[in-house]
């Protein structure tokens, strides 16, 4: 399986359904529109940051907080709900791996098909309310891995 970490069998089951939905969800995603100042301010207010992928999800995609956080709105230590939400729209590593590889010059350095996977969670690298950092570069400090959602370089 994909994107799940140890101990989260429940989320694993929901994953199967989520992957099926992925194609439709992507097709329905609206085209670019910058977050309104109000929307950006809302994220900043809640999470204390103007960085991260929450901005594009709220602004461009017009998603509500609970689209990622669920009705409970409180992430668990493993951020299970949030990671399942990533997979629901973006697909599992089975899909993301080849998709990412297609864009790479050096196909050996593929964050979505790495030796840390396939259980590694999306939120290990992708942060919604702060700067994102590829976990790879903790050890492979020579890798250049730009991350979506980082507003400062």
């Amino acid at each position: 399986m994909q994107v799940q970490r140890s101990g989260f069998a429940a989320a694993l089951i929901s994953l199967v359904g989520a992957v099926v939905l992925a194609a439709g969800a992507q097709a329905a995603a609206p085209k670019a529109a910058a977050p309104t100042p109000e929307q950006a301010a809302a994220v900043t207010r809640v999470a204390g940051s103007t960085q991260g992928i929450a901005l594009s999800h709220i602004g461009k995609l017009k998603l509500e907080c609970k689209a990622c956080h669920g009705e409970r709105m409180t992430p668990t230590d493993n951020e299970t709900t949030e990671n399942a939400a990533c997979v629901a729209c973006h697909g599992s590593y089975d899909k993301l791996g080849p998709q990412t590889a297609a864009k790479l010059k050096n196909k050996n350095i593929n964050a979505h098909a790495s030796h840390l996977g396939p259980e590694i969670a999306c939120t290990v690298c992708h942060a919604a309310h702060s700067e994102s950092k590829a976990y790879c570069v903790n050890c492979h400090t020579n890798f250049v891995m730009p991350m979506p959602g980082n507003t400062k370089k």
Partner: protein
Amino acid sequence: MKRRTFLASGPAAGALSLFGPAAWAVSRKETADVVVIGSGGTGLTAGLTAQADGAKVIVLEKMPITGGNTQLAAGGMNAADTRFQAQRKIADSWRTMYDDTMKGGKNINDPALVEVLAKNSAASVDWLSSIGADMSGVGRMAGASEDRTHRPAAGDAVGHNIVHAMRQTAIQRKLDVRTNSRVIKIFRNRAGRVTGVLVQNKFGEVYSIEAPVVILASGGFSADLARVAQYQPSYAGFSSTNQPGATGDGLDLGAEVGGQLRDMQHIQIHPTQAAGSKILITEAVRGNGAILVNSQGKRFVNELTTRDAASAAILAQPGGTAYLILDQDIRKSLKQIEGYYHLELVKEGNTPEDLARTLGMDPATFKATLDTYNSAQAAKKDAEFGRPDMPRPVKTGPFIAIGVRPGVHYTMGGLAINTKAQVLDKDGKPIPGLYAGGEVTGGVHGANRLGGNSISETITFGRIAGAEAAKEARAARATSVKKA
């Protein structure tokens, strides 16, 4: 910090610090039979084992991912008297593995722990196989008298293979594994018994878990370079090959409740870690013919000297770094070198002069270094540095450079344990309810760990700690029922 009870009140969570407040704001209390600190090979093995023995287990991992250093292991797992050896008619025995391990550790290992390691190693291979790991390949690493390094037959790296099997088994069995969860305190009551832990999660929330048994499986401290230099000042300036979580906080947790530390000054290093990366460049690159030059393009050492001497020589060069220099024939002789290309650790030049210019060296000096070495290689005599074996010249372009520096790789020392994986106090008595296994402990490897022995240690002592912990938790539960 003396804390004997679970606190329900204190300052706001935002003001928390390990040393600051007099009390913690504990947001909730949970209970478990066994708490495991760390989710590398030892932690997941202990957690799965205790759970299989009927215990309610919570595994806590401070990092965002499970697997620790184990998932990075590339060598293999030493084991003797295994069925995979029998299939190959390899005449090994636990006694030979014991002797090799004691010799490698300069005989300061705890002999009782080494005996446990060697005698249980075959059963540990079987256990790993039973949860889906592939240990059917058998090779040999340095210091072993027989082929006993077990690894996946199809070339998958051993660490990835076994951690993947453990994670999948944990998912199937609904083992409660929590990432982003740092233990900041182990509780010990007046009677001396461990009673649980205090946990801080990624969001700053602090909660307690009451448990009669705690297993420390938190790994070594190779990634905490200040701590390394404190125990071994000659390794100041080294880099680390370890995952960023290997900072040794588990040693502090154990020491705070009275655990005895041993052999802390014994730290394993590697002379050729790729500069600007945590990747180890295998010694076989030098073994197969590569030379070391400094940033001025000059050789400075017998490349095949001991790890300590080679590391010290590299550190003494300008910038504390050096380059491995090789050619296409040496590249062809060793599969791993392709991996260094994949990871973009390699620089090339069609001629020695081209490569020198890429590296910012004087081309004539570098060319002269290669010419001198190649003459020595042809004459089979290295007059400059006395290198005993020069299997290949460095003459077929494009020429290759890999920047390297010495790295800290493994910490042999740690908490003293007995053969049941119980942590010992300063008087050598077990601390009731506290167990430990893997790199956080000392004694198994003595002064020097043999390649392939640490995976073996994690599985064997993880299984022992898990089984003993489940047993003790059962006994503790029976006692509390009787009291009630």
